[in-house]
C-alpha cells in the first residue's frame, strides 16, 4: 500500500467515525473546493504591439492591457527578431512605466547642483526656457552646445540631424558604453552588423562573446541556441567557449577554455593553421577576400597546439580537441565578442577571429554569418569623439549640454575626467524620466514619456537578415505630465521659428514619424497610408524582404595581435579586473527596476547588489570567504565589494558586473551596490581608444567584515548537485 493511500484510508476511517452525525454536508467537499471551471471568467485584455527599448537589440513586444492599464509585456510572435520570446529586461520594462520615482513634471533646479532639489514648473515655462537656452546657438558656428544621446537610428537620427543642422557649431555625441563600435573597426565591419546563423551551425566557437546575455541580440541568439541544441532530429550542435570567465553563455558550452585575458585570438590562429594544413579552408571565400593561403600559412605557422596552449594558458588536451572539432565539424561558426574587444590588442584579435570565419567560408552561408546592410540613417560616435568633447568641456568651451537617453555621469569611469568636465558646463538640460546620475546635474529637466507611452521606430542593429523597422506606439495614456523628447524638439523648433520651424513643420512626432516612415517603407506610399500604418502598428513594425547578401571586399591581411596590456603595474596590482555587462542591468540602465534587482544573477545568484567574483584558490590565498567585504584598488581608485567565490574564473582574474552603484535613478537603484567603473584605469596610446572593460589591474584586500550580499543559492549547497541525481 502506498504511503499516501494508507494515510488516505486511515484518515477516512477516522473521518467517518467522527463524522457519523454530519455526513450530509461532507459529500460536497470537493466540488466546493475545486472552483468551477465555468465560474468567474477573467476580464478580457487587449494586446498592443510595440518595441522593447531596454537594450539596443530592439525586440518586438506585445503589451497586455486591461482596463486601460498595461499589465504584462510578452514577446511579439510576428516579429522576425525575437519571434515571441523576450528576456527578463524586456518584461521588466513595465515597471519603468509605473515606477514610483518617475519625474512627473518639468523641473527647474532650485538647490546646488547634484542636491536633487528642484521646483516643478509648467510646460510653457519649461519650453520657453529651452528655447531661450537654444537661441544663442542658432546659425552660430561657435562650439558652445552639445547634444549627448545614445546612438540613434531611424527617425530619431533624422530628426536630430534635421534639428541640429540649424546649429552648425553644435556637437552631437551619440555614444553609449556597450555600443559595439569595435564591430565596425574589425575587418568585416563595413559589411554591416552580423546575424549569426546559430540555429543552423553544428559547431559554435565563442571568443568571449556572451551572446546569450548581452552581446548584440541576446533573445535572438538565445532562440537560435535552443534550436542549435535540440531542434534537429539527429544533430546536437556543439559549443566551445574561450575566455577568462565562465559567463552564463560559457556555462551553456560543452567546453570552456579558460584562456588568459586577451589571449583568445591564439586559438583562432591555431584553427586557421590546422585548416590550411588539412586543406579544409574555403579557397573561394579566401580568394574573394583577397587572402592568399600561403601568406596566411606563413602568418599562422607558429601557432601549433602547444603554442596556442602556451599563449592561452589552457591545457593542451582541450586545445587539441577543440581544434580537431573546429576543423572536422561543419558548419563551424566563430563569434567574437566583448571580452576580446575590451582588451588593448582588440583590433588585431578581432581580425584573427574574422579571418577564421572567412577561411571557413562562413559569409552568407547557412550556419554562418549574414550581414544586413542597413539603409537607414544611423548616428553613433566613438570613444575618441567622447574624449574630444571632454576636452572641450574641460576648457570651458561648452556652454550648454542637452542630454537625452544616456547617462554618461554613470557610464563613464571617473578616470575619463568626464564627471569633472561635465560639472564645468554652465547649463545642462536633461530629458530623462528619472533623476539619474546625469539628470541630477541638470539645471532643467524636461521629463520624457516612458517607452510604453511613446511613439518610435526601432531598427534592430543585428540579428535579422531582412530590413526590419520595429514600431513603438503608446499602449497607455501618459501617466504623468511628460512630453516625448522628439515632440520637444519639434516644439522648440516652432518656438525658435525661422527656417528651423519651416523645415520641421510637423505638429507632433507622430506626424514626423509617419512622414519619415513613408520615405523608408514602400508600402506606406501606396494607398491609404494611415490604414497601412495602422496595420504595421498592429503587427509591430515593418518586416521587409530579405536583403541582398553583403559582398565581401578585399580584406587587409591580418596581423598578429600584440600581447594584451593592462593599466597598472603588475607588482602593485597583481590581479586583472574583468568588468562585464550584467544580464539584468545591461549597462546599468535597468537597475532601477525591482523585478530585475531581485532576479538572481544566473551565475553568482546574487540579488539587489553588486559583488566581486574571485577564484576560490585566490580567495583562499588571500583569506577571503564568501560574502566578506574586500577592498579593490586600481591605479584609478578603490572600492569595496562583497566577495563571491567563483570557480569559473582564472585565478589571476577577478570580475565584477556593470550596472549597480548609481547615485540616482530612484529608490531601487540609488546607493545600491558599487560602480566598478571607478576602478577603470585608462590605457595610454591605444590606436582606437575605447572603454577597455577588461584591461585594468587591481589588488584586493580582505576587510574582515561581512558585505551586503544576498544570494538565492546556498554557497555550499550549490556544489551538491549529486544529491539531486543531476
Amino acid at each position: 500500500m502506498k504511503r499516501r493511500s494508507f494515510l488516505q484510508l486511515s484518515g477516512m476511517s477516522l473521518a467517518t467515525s467522527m463524522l457519523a452525525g454530519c455526513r450530509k454536508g461532507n459529500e460536497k467537499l470537493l466540488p466546493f473546493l475545486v472552483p468551477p471551471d465555468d465560474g468567474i471568467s477573467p476580464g478580457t485584455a487587449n494586446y498592443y504591439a510595440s518595441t522593447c527599448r531596454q537594450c539596443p537589440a530592439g525586440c518586438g513586444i506585445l503589451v497586455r492591457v486591461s482596463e486601460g492599464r498595461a499589465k504584462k509585456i510578452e514577446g511579439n510572435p510576428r516579429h522576425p527578431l525575437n519571434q515571441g520570446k523576450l528576456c527578463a529586461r524586456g518584461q521588466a520594462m513595465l515597471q519603468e512605466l509605473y515606477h514610483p520615482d518617475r519625474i512627473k513634471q518639468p523641473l527647474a533646479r532650485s538647490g546646488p547642483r547634484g542636491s536633487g532639489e528642484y521646483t516643478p514648473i509648467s510646460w510653457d515655462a519649461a519650453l520657453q526656457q529651452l528655447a531661450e537656452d537654444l537661441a544663442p546657438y542658432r546659425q552660430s558656428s561657435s562650439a558652445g552646445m552639445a547634444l549627448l544621446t545614445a546612438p540613434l537610428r531611424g527617425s530619431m537620427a533624422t530628426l536630430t540631424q534635421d534639428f541640429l543642422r540649424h546649429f552648425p557649431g553644435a556637437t552631437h555625441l551619440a555614444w553609449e558604453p556597450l555600443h559595439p563600435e569595435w564591430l565596425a573597426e574589425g575587418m568585416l565591419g563595413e559589411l554591416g552588423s552580423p546575424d549569426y546563423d546559430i540555429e543552423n551551425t553544428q559547431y559554435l566557437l565563442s571568443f568571449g562573446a556572451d551572446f546569450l546575455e548581452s552581446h548584440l541580440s541576446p533573445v535572438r541568439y538565445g532562440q537560435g541556441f535552443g534550436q542549435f541544441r535540440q531542434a534537429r532530429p539527429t544533430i546536437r550542435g556543439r559549443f566551445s567557449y574561450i575566455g577568462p570567465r565562465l559567463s552564463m553563455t560559457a556555462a551553456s558550452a560543452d567546453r570552456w577554455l579558460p584562456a588568459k585575458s586577451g589571449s583568445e585570438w591564439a586559438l583562432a590562429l591555431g584553427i586557421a593553421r590546422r585548416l590550411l594544413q588539412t586543406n579544409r579552408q574555403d579557397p573561394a571565400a579566401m580568394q574573394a577576400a583577397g587572402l592568399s593561403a600561403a601568406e596566411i600559412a606563413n602568418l599562422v605557422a607558429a601557432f601549433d597546439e602547444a603554442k596556442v596552449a602556451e599563449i592561452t594558458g589552457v591545457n593542451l588536451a582541450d586545445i587539441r580537441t577543440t581544434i580537431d572539432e573546429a576543423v572536422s565539424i561543419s558548419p563551424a561558426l566563430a563569434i567574437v565578442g566583448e571580452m576580446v574587444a575590451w582588451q588593448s590588442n582588440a583590433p588585431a584579435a578581432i581580425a584573427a577571429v574574422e579571418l577564421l570565419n572567412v577561411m571557413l567560408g562562413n559569409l552568407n552561408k547557412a550556419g554562418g554569418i549574414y550581414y544586413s546592410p542597413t539603409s537607414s540613417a544611423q548616428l553613433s560616435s566613438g570613444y575618441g569623439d567622447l574624449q574630444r568633447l571632454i576636452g572641450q568641456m574641460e576648457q570651458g568651451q561648452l556652454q550648454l549640454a542637452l542630454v537625452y537617453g544616456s547617462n554618461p555621469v554613470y557610464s563613464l569611469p571617473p578616470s575619463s575626467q568626464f564627471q569633472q568636465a561635465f560639472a564645468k558646463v554652465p547649463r545642462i538640460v536633461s530629458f530623462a524620466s528619472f533623476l539619474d546620475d546625469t539628470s541630477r546635474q541638470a539645471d532643467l529637466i524636461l521629463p520624457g514619456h516612458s517607452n510604453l507611452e511613446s511613439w518610435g521606430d526601432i531598427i534592430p542593429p543585428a540579428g535579422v537578415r531582412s530590413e526590419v523597422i520595429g514600431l513603438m506606439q503608446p499602449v497607455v495614456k501618459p501617466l504623468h505630465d511628460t512630453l516625448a523628447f522628439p515632440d520637444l524638439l519639434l516644439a522648440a523648433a516652432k518656438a525658435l521659428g525661422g527656417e528651423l520651424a519651416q523645415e520641421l513643420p510637423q505638429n507632433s512626432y507622430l506626424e514626423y514619424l509617419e512622414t519619415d516612415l513613408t520615405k523608408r517603407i514602400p508600402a506606406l506610399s501606396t494607398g491609404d497610408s494611415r490604414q497601412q500604418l495602422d496595420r504595421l502598428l498592429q503587427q509591430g513594425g515593418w518586416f521587409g524582404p530579405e536583403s541582398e547578401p553583403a559582398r565581401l571586399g578585399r580584406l587587409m591581411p591580418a596581423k598578429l595581435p600584440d600581447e594584451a596590456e593592462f593599466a597598472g603595474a603588475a607588482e602593485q596590482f597583481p590581479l586583472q579586473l574583468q568588468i562585464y555587462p550584467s544580464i539584468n542591468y545591461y549597462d546599468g540602465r535597468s537597475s532601477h527596476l525591482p523585478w530585475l534587482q531581485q532576479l538572481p544573477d544566473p551565475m553568482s545568484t546574487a540579488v539587489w547588489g553588486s559583488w566581486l567574483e574571485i577564484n576560490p584558490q585566490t580567495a583562499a590565498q588571500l583569506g577571503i570567504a564568501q560574502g566578506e567585504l574586500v577592498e579593490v584598488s586600481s591605479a584609478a581608485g578603490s572600492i569595496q565589494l562583497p566577495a563571491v567565490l567563483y570557480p569559473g574564473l582564472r585565478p589571476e582574474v577577478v570580475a565584477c558586473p556593470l550596472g549597480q552603484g548609481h547615485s540616482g535613478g530612484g529608490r531601487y537603484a540609488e546607493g545600491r551596490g558599487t560602480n566598478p567603473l571607478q576602478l577603470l584605469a585608462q590605457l595610454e596610446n591605444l590606436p582606437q581608444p575605447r572603454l577597455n572593460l577588461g584591461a585594468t589591474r587591481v589588488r584586493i584586500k580582505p576587510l574582515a567584515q561581512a558585505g551586503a550580499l544576498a544570494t538565492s543559492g546556498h554557497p555550499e549547497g550549490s556544489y551538491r548537485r549529486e544529491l539531486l541525481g543531476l
Partner: protein
Amino acid sequence: MNTRDKTYSAARMNEAMLSSMQPPTLRWYLLALVLGAVVAVGLYAFTVQLTTGMVVTGINRPVMWGLYIISFVFWVGLSHSGTMVSAILRLSQASWRRPILRGAEAMTVFSIAVAGLFPLIHLGRNWIFYYLIPYPSQYGLWPNFRSPLLFDMVAINTYIIGSGIFLYIGMLPDLALVRDRSTGWRRKIYGLLAIGWRGTAEQWRVFSRGSTLLACLIIPVAVSVHSIVAWDFAVTLVPGWHSTIFAPYFVIGAITSGVAAVITLMIVIRKAFKLEEFLLPLHFDNMSKLLLAVCLLWSYFYFAEVFTTWYGHKPIEWEWFSYMHDHYGLALFIMILGNTIVPIVGLCFRRVRRSTAALLGITLLVNVAMFIERFLIVVPSLSHKNIPFIWGSYTPSWVEMSIALAAFALFFLLYTLFTKFFPILAITDVREQEEALIGQQQLGRARVETLVNEE
C-alpha cells in the same frame, strides 16, 4: 475507613498538606507579578507577530517550522509526566506515588494547555484557526482528516480534556475536604466543585473504580498523543524526519522529560511549602530510578536512530546529520550529556538519587537537553532538505524567544495559582498511605519500604 491515629493526628496532617493554600504572602505576589510580566511580554510579542506577519520570526524557506513547533513538542512531552506517570504508578500500585500524584497531574494539564497554544501561535493566519476545527459550515467544508495536524488537533484536545478530568476526579475527596474547612463564598465554590462528595463507602468504591478506569484510559491517550506528534514529522518525506522509530522514540523522550520535570517540581514544592515530611527521600529515589530507566531507553532509541543513519549513509540523510554535527556540535554535546551521560551515571548512585540538590541539577539538565533535542529534530533536517540549492539555517527572533519564554512563565503562573487554590498533595491518598501499615523488606542489600496492606 480506618481512622486509627498513627504518627499525626488527621487534622494536623491535613493542615500541613494544605499549607500551600494559605493566604498569599508578599513573596507569592512578587513571584506572580514577575511571571505575569514575562507573560505580558510574550503577549506583546504575539501581537507584533499578529499585526505584522511571520516576518518577525526567524522562519524562512526551507526552515518553515521553528521555535513554536519545538516548544510545542517540548510541552507536549512535558505533559507526559504527570498523567501518564501517575496512571502507571496507580495501576502498578506503587505506594510511594501518593504524594507525587497531584503535582504531576496538574503539571500535565498545564503543560498540555501551554502546548496547545503553540500550534495556534505558529499559524500564519492565526485568526482563522477555526478552519482546523470540524464544524458544520454553510460551504460544507470539513478539515482534512488525512493531515497529521488534524490528528494532532484531535489528540491534543482529547488529552487536555482527559487529563483535566483525571486531575479533577482525583481531586474530588480533597476538594470536599477544602470545602469543609472553608467558609463563605469559598465554601460555595468548593462545594460546587466537590459535587456532593461526602466520603460514603459507595462513593469511595465508585471513586476507586473510576480512578483505575481513567488511569487505564489515559495511558493509551498519552501514548497516542506523543506518537501523533512524532508522526507530524515521521510521515513526511523530510530526510531526518521520515523514520519509523519516531513514535516510540518521542514517547520515551516525552516520559523522560516528564519524569524529570516531576522530580524538579517535587523538589520545588517540597521546599516552597515545607512538605519535607511527606515527600521523602524514598519518593525521590523511586522517581530517580524511573528516570534512569527512561534515560536508558531514550539513549537506546537515539543510538538506534543515529546508528542506522550512519550505517546506511544515504547521502541526503547523511547530509542533515553532518550538518547537525558540524553546526550544532555544542548543542549535540549538551543533549548527550544531559539525556544520557549525566543521568545514567549519576542516578546509579543512591546518594545522588536521594539528594535533592543533585537531583535538581540533573533533572533541570535533562529538560534543557530535551529542549535541545527537539531543536535538533526540527531545525537541522529542515535546514538541509532535499534541495541543496536552497539550504538554509534558522535563528529564532526576539518575538519567538519572548513567546517561548512566556510559555514557561505562563506554566509556572498557572501552577502557582493552582497551588493557591487547590491542594497540591493528594491528601486522601497520602493519608491512606500513612494510615496503612508500613512494612519493610530486604531486597538484596537494600531495605525497601513496602505497603503490606494495599490491595
